[in-house]
């Protein structure tokens, strides 16, 4: 057993922390308030190699591991949930499926620019009538000559407006038992027939781009089907397993930020002639927060480590996502409580932590779905 990070992991964490504190933190309030997607920050993050951490150098990546990537997501999440979500989605949902399942040509054309940080990508799974039940995908892909023709609608797709390509899931036929075969298709930006709108007015992660996609007779070359045509469903389950680690890391970042703010404030704020950190009621809140943040982080790192070791990590990534996202929500809520009236004000930022944290209990599988995944792993 060794809980020590490698030098590279530590250096990456320090670099991302410095970058996040110097470049992202000063803008976090405005990013949220004005729903501004910080495109320029993503350009800088790309130049620093952050968008390619878990991909090998031959595909334009940095050759890091999942642990390093999780540390980077946590540090960005600690200052800005919006930037953190778009970052996690770009790597885990946008680029990862291309790396895991793409053909060599697809990797050359679509993965390399992402890993080098020259663009973002999205993953379009959710539909108005197929959320948790992703198998209920209604978007259809029909093979006509050398092209697939896609028709349907996708909802809440992170980064779609800024994506150079979007991986879209669709029904592409039926299995012998009558069930739908779900495959994934790489749709380049500006493909005729694909309309992307970002009109959602969100509760949190307001600076993360979230888009609705309408597909009307969208033609993509036959070669753009991702990986094994029959294994689309299994592929996106694997993608989501990986994505959960990053959502969990983002949650740890928000929980840590909540603890940091609450602790600093409690030591400074005086009521009844004493800093409120001297009151046991406040101390117990802080003690619980500190403990839960550390437990959540340990679970995230373990899941990431399992993934890096090539061991099964489905259950552990569900543990991490479930526990960390609920921890983030509780911690942010307690941080507001400890700040009293000030905590309810935007300026103090903890109210934003709560709004941002809420998304993490919903996106990439709701908390209920995580419990279902865990129960299934238990053999229920």
């Amino acid at each position, binding site marked *: 057993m060794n809980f020590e990070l490698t*030098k*590279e992991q*530590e*250096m*990456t964490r*320090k*670099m991302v922390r*410095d*970058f996040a504190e110097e470049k992202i933190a000063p803008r976090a309030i405005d990013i949220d308030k004005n729903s501004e997607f910080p495109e320029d920050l993503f350009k800088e993050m790309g*130049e*620093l*190699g*952050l968008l*390619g*951490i878990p991909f090998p*150098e031959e595909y334009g990546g*940095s*050759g*890091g591991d999942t642990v390093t990537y999780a540390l980077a997501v946590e540090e960005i999440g600690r200052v800005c949930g919006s930037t953190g979500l778009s970052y996690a989605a770009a790597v885990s949902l946008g680029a990862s499926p291309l790396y895991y399942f793409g053909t060599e040509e697809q990797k050359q054309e679509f993965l390399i620019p992402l890993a080098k940080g020259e663009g973002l990508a999205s993953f379009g799974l959710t539909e108005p009538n197929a959320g948790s039940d992703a198998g209920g995908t209604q978007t259809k892909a029909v093979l006509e000559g050398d092209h697939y023709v896609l028709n349907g609608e996708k909802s809440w797709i992170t980064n779609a407006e800024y994506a150079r390509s979007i991986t879209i899931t669709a029904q592409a036929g039926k299995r012998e038992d009558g069930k739908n075969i779900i495959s994934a298709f790489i749709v380049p930006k500006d493909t005729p027939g694909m309309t992307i709108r970002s009109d959602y007015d969100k509760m949190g992660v307001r600076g993360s781009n979230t888009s609705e996609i309408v597909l009307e007779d969208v033609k993509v070359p036959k070669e753009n089907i991702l990986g094994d045509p029959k294994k689309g469903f299994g592929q996106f389950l694997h993608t989501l397993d990986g994505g959960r680690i990053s959502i969990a890391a983002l949650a740890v970042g928000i929980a840590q930020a909540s603890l940091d703010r609450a602790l600093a404030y409690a030591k400074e704020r005086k009521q009844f002639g004493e800093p409120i950190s001297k009151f046991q009621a406040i101390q117990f809140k802080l003690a619980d927060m500190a403990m839960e943040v550390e437990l959540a982080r340990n679970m995230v790192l373990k899941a990431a480590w399992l993934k890096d070791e090539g061991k099964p990590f489905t259950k552990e990534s569900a543990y991490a996502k479930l526990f960390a996202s609920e921890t983030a929500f509780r911690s942010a809520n307690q941080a507001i409580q400890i700040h009293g009236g000030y905590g309810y004000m935007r300026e103090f930022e903890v109210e934003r932590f709560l709004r941002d944290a809420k998304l993490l209990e919903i996106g990439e599988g709701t908390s209920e779905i995580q419990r279902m995944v865990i129960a299934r792993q238990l053999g229920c």
Partner: protein
Amino acid sequence: MNIYVLLKRTFDTEEKISISNGKIEDEGAEYIINPYDEYAVEEAINLKDAHGGEVTVVTVGDEEAEKQLRTALAMGADKSVLINTEDDLEEGDQYTTVRILEAYFKENEPDIILAGNVAIDEASGQVGPRLAERLDIPFVTTITDISIDGETVNIERDVEGDVEKVETTLPLLVTCQQGLNEPRYPSLPGIMKAKKKPLEEIEIDDLDLEEDDVEAKTKTLEIFLPPEKQAGKIIEGEPDEQVKELVSLLKNESKVL
């Protein structure tokens, strides 16, 4: 060009620092590259990009400094040297460091050595200039701009907010001041590449030095934190009464008037 950087690992003075048994508590302190040395690393890389050559980062310290050296390599330095004094020296001062560096540079041929203006921990600002004296090369402190043309070097230095322009020649030692440049973040590919870059570790023995040769010339008697900030005093009353009260306090209580 043979470009060298002197780099020190220091604790982060922006983080909480505590003292026990007359020493800075290691536990809980954050260690960083001395911020002024970051300007030196950045400038060294810029000089290399402009004139070619190689950047070597040198530190006198212990094993723990490897992280800071690796960070400099990740930023773009080519080689690093750790002169490890852990087993040989209990204590050292600026004299110690200068003697060790002098011995090191006698065996190498620097065209330019870049150091920080001061190290933020002890803030003596002595190592750079004293090393240059020992090596018998010119030095310019607190530089904010540098351009090299053949052997000629044009420098702007900060003198208490004013700019002084200096012309000098290589080989040269400079100490870097805020404003010289904006140090880059070590990129991820840089961090990964740093793994494979050379980190040479030597001891004073390898420089033909004995413990006695480098024995500190000064002795630290005590280390203490500045007194905690006291709560301010709010003076009440009409403006003219307040002024009277303030003057009387400055005279009688704090005795500054």
